[in-house]
């Protein structure tokens, strides 16, 4: 069950079908000892962003440590999405990289274009939905981690007001907000969720202002789906708790950072590099979660009472054991039925989620 096919929608299939037929890949030819596999990465931000690109770079370092001199890695950082991405990918392919990780959604079309030109190079594209014989996609079920953080937040809030700093109204973030809210309400039926859209992935000053705006609304717990530590810094100054996002953000332990949702790409990267080395790599679309170690829950600090910690860990273990954070009965925000008792959504449905669940009072910007 850990290799669910992400999407089989007509659109994605049609696009894949439109691509020129690829010559059969040299699947099943292991790379002999003594020959180095070159692995390339492109990052949308700087490796020092302390969040998204930083975590992918940790993955790169992990494969270096794991495979030693059997592989060689290189990366290009700060790559704008669009034409520049295609050039960066091509440069990596021309430099002899046989496995290339493209670590942002916006690289999607560039990856597909480049992959068509280099049929003997394998591409791994994070969070996209277009695939080809030599393009695999991978993503993380961040919403599973949100269920755990939501549990902590719901039990920790004293004002019964929890804040969420969203980046952009896209499905990944919608899933996170909905999952957070469902699990807030599970442990605390009186809690309210306040949502602020920052319209940025990374703008420390703006994120700090967003945190302040939430605090001024009486919020005392903040979750964020933006990458900087600024909201935690604000919480430290003004009181309240929050969580690390993307990376552990350990500098703010034990409080205000009481736990974290960690993008842990290391197991997946190690596995896929290994598959190329032993000749078993094949294209796929995977969406991995807590069970696979791709979504990590950072250490729950002593600032959290023991029973809250226990509840959070129980939630984490339940999810690893097969509990789906979106399990019916659930209605949409407008009251219309979404999931019946015990029903869970398909991955296609989740991947294009554009609505709030019932009970959230915030509105989605249009």
């Amino acid at each position, binding site marked *: 069950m850990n290799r669910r096919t992400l999407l089989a929608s007509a659109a994605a299939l049609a696009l894949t079908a439109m691509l020129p037929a690829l010559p059969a890949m040299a699947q099943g030819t292991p790379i002999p000892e003594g020959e180095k596999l070159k692995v390339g990465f492109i990052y949308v931000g700087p490796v020092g962003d302390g969040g998204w690109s930083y975590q992918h770079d940790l993955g790169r370092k992990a494969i270096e440590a794991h495979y030693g001199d059997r592989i060689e890695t290189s990366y290009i950082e700060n790559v704008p999405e669009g034409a520049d991405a295609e*050039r960066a990918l091509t*440069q990596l392919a*021309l430099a002899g990289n046989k496995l290339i990780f493209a670590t942002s959604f916006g690289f999607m*079309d560039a990856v597909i274009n480049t992959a068509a030109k280099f049929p003997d190079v394998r591409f791994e594209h994070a969070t996209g939905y277009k695939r080809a014989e030599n393009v695999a996609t991978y993503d993380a079920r961040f919403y599973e981690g949100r269920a755990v953080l939501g549990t902590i937040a719901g039990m920790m809030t004293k004002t019964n007001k929890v804040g969420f700093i969203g980046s952009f109204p896209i*499905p990944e973030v919608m899933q996170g907000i909905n999952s957070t809210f469902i699990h807030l309400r599970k442990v605390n039926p009186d809690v309210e969720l306040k949502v602020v859209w920052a319209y940025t992935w990374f703008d420390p000053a703006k994120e700090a202002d967003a945190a302040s705006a939430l605090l001024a609304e009486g919020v005392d717990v903040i979750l964020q789906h933006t990458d900087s530590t600024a909201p935690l810094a604000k919480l430290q100054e003004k009181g309240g708790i929050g969580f690390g996002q993307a990376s552990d953000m350990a500098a703010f332990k034990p409080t205000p950072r009481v736990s974290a949702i960690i993008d842990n790409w290391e197991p997946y990267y190690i596995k896929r590099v290994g598959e190329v080395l032993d000749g078993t790599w094949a294209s796929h679309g995977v969406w991995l979660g807590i069970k696979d170690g791709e979504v990590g829950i950072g250490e729950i600090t002593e600032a959290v009472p023991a029973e809250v910690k226990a509840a959070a860990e129980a939630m984490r273990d339940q999810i690893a054991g097969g509990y789906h954070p979106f399990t019916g009965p659930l209605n949409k925000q407008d009251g219309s039925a979404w999931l019946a008792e015990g029903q869970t959504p398909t991955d296609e449905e989740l991947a294009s989620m554009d609505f709030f669940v019932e009970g959230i009072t915030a509105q989605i910007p249009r």
Partner: protein
Amino acid sequence: MLQLEPRAATPWWLAIASPLMAVVATMVAGGALFALMGFDPVASIRTIFWDPLFGPASGYSRPQLLVKAGPLILIASGLAIGFRAGIWNIGAEGQYIIGGICGAAVALAAYPAEGAWIFPAMVLAGAAGGWAWGMIPATLRNWTGASEILVSLMLVYVAQRVAAWMAFGPMRSPEGFGMPGSRNLQHYPSAANPELAAGTGAHWGVIAAGLAVLATWFLMSRHIRGFRIRVAGMAPRAARFAGVRPETLVAFCLGLSGALAGMAGLFEVSGPGGQITDSFGSGYGFTAIIVAFLGRLHPLGILLAGLLLALTYIGGELAQLMLQLPAATVQVFQGMLLFFLLGFDTLTRYRLRWRAAK
């Protein structure tokens, strides 16, 4: 003390030598910086300046120079005309964005119809969008005297937000699973602006850039309007006596540079970029200002300056890839290159003289 004295005319050899000296100075200072950071300076410089042109993968990167330089040259050609006349359009980035949006709007409205009229209509719409965005500061300056520098700059910010609004709202692709960004025009044959011949990098935007260089050269050196522009820049009052209406000139220069920037945006969105996203403006409009100055506002100089800047971008990526040089180092290097080029440029306009202090 050392003083600057204006030259009556720039000797031809100095016009060539000064950018070369600047490049050499950047190599020396940049090399020192790389060495300081623990990188091999010779290898770093070679990777940035030599490898994209003659290195092992140059068969790919040489055409890419055209892709990167095309919009810079196209925009800078238009800007330089205004700069010559003392009309400062620094909002080309906004005109580029609006041109891209207008051109893409035609394509998205026509989708999925196919027809030979679509691409030319997009080019017109792109040029018209850029022209209109450029005419705002022109009109405001002519009516009220508001500085075109500041109005055009403010309109960049507005255009950036229009792009974000489009990507999340009206232009969002219905097949994009709720992600921001328009349809990819590369996948829409009638609207696409692909490579015209495989492996050359040349798309319609590159052709347009070449034409713009020729046309602006002709305008500035062979046409009466070019003469007026030069006179207006050098001696505004004399120009007025000669019957040059400043209002016409402002409208002409801002409109033309806006139209060219808008076309650059259109060629980018229909070609290498593919779609309108919230970050569609990627700084070409600002970089083109630098290109215009590095090219000393001369069409041929702009051609070379555009290629040089494209070289540092592509070489910078190679240096990251081959030598693990951080992206920031390359950015510092580019900054230094600009400082040196601007500084050495002074020598072409002024001569240094020792003079006893008064």
